[in-house]
């Protein structure tokens, strides 16, 4: 559906996006993830034709961006960051104008606007001026704007920023619904959002792609290494350490809390394809330690993200 090759963008001397390559298949929900200033928005802006790439190519279906920009724009619905809309227009007038620019005829326009009002929950604010709306409501109007023509590709730049938890859940629901038939690309720095909505993740940092994989693969590939947390009462750290470090595949045993009177917290770093919990349990059972907590931390996207993007 979308094919990006060696895409590069320079702002004067600053390289915002550096030779990135990726492909997006039809019906995929792709999450573009990265810290602030990683080049997410720039990438999306190039995909939508707002910025011209310094070099590299973008192909959408069979259209090249430098030859058939207008045709590509017709396929794409775009919600820019913080939904910039015409402030002096009424919500209905605005969407009506967008529908017109999208070349919809009158009957289709009215039924589509009605549909979108329902989908995005805009019925109550249809006749209000856009500058009176809260950030969340503007975001919804922006979403309606992006979906106006029922585009094949939907590009959303931080779609849930500034929304309250209920609205976030709603918008995610909408995105997942759309994603069943459409291709969706969304950028975010909120990790749970990617976990909740996306099939595939592309992580970029400093303009380069550092990971590009399906959600499950990404989690699995890093799951060789994991932590086990234990809390003991009235137990000596040194004896715990000496005993546990002997277990095969245990890389490290550290103390994680320093309070003298509290329980003793221990973190065990394991590097194994197997689950070591059983062995650890058997070991502890042979002693007289009082175990009050025992859990394994599976690697979340958050830890993966932090490891990949942290400064060297």
């Amino acid at each position: 559906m979308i094919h990006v090759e060696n895409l590069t963008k320079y702002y004067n001397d600053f390289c915002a996006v550096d030779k990135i390559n990726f492909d997006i298949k039809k019906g995929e929900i792709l999450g573009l993830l990265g810290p602030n200033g990683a080049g997410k928005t720039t990438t999306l802006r190039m995909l939508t034709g707002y910025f011209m790439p310094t070099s590299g190519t973008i192909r959408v279906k069979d259209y090249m961006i430098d030859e058939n920009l207008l045709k590509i724009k017709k396929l794409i619905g775009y919600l820019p960051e913080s939904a910039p809309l015409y402030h002096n227009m009424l919500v209905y007038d605005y969407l009506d104008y967008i529908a017109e620019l999208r070349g919809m005829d009158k009957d289709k326009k009215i039924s589509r606007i009605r549909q979108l009002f329902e989908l995005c929950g805009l019925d109550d604010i249809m006749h209000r001026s856009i500058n009176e709306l809260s950030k969340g409501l503007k975001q919804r109007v922006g979403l309606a704007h992006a979906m106006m023509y029922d585009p094949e590709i939907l590009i959303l730049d931080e779609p849930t920023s500034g929304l309250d938890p209920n609205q976030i859940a709603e918008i995610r629901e909408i995105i997942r619904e759309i994603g069943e038939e459409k291709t969706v690309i969304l950028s975010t720095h909120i990790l749970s959002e990617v976990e909740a909505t996306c099939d595939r993740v592309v992580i970029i940092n400093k303009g380069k792609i550092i990971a590009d994989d399906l959600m499950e693969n990404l989690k699995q590939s890093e799951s060789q290494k994991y932590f086990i947390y234990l809390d003991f009462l009235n137990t000596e750290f040194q004896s715990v350490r000496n005993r546990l470090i002997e277990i095969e595949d245990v890389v490290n045993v550290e103390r994680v809390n320093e309070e003298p009177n509290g329980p003793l917290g221990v973190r065990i770093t394991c590097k194994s394809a197997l689950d070591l919990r059983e062995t650890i349990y058997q070991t502890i059972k042979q002693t007289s330690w009082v175990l009050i907590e025992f859990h394994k931390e599976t690697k979340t996207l958050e830890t993966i993200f932090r490891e990949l993007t942290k400064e060297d």
Partner: protein
Amino acid sequence: MQQVIRICNKELKDYFISPIAYIVISIFLLVTGWFFFATFFYYNQADLRNFFDLLPITFSFFIPAVTMRLFSEERNVGSYEMLLTLPLTFNDILVGKFLAGVFFVAAALVPTLAYPICVAFIGQLDWGTVAGGYMGALLLGSAFTAVGLFASSLTRNQIIAFIVGMAICFTLALIDKMLFFFPRPMLGVIGYLGADFHFKNIAKGIIDSRDILYFISVIFIGLYGTHLAMKGKN
């Protein structure tokens, strides 16, 4: 072409829904009306020369004030990003906005038709020169609109857009009165650049293709500059 009309419609609606249009047009009418009638009876001649003579100067203030928002505001609010990602070309956008500006100037000129009508009651008015004057005013207005549009495409700050636009229009309006500053060999060329000179020819009722070509060139250069500015920013 349809897209151009849609953009133009939207911009015109924006002008006339908000109070800007009415304020700007009232001030324009007040200023031109005052300067015209204040001296009209001294001359004791039934023509509109006074009104048309001042038009290049009043337009240099009035038109940049109208066009300053066309691009600057969109850039400032960010809606420019929405606009450019809709199925529109640069030319659709800039021609649409330009036409909206021209229609606005025309709308401001319509009430001034009351002047020739009043004058026709008191004396023998030559309607030929009046028609020429209005045609010239429209050409001049379009040329200044193109310049103002260009100024607006340069910056996201409306005040800067206004001042830059005004400076360029003012220079075009006054340059042929400043000729004594320039060396003799350049006089012909610089004199030809003055909008006032060409406008006066048309306002006298002499419709010369050179004058029309001049205004069309200014319009074209202004719009082309806008196109380049849009392209440069993306």
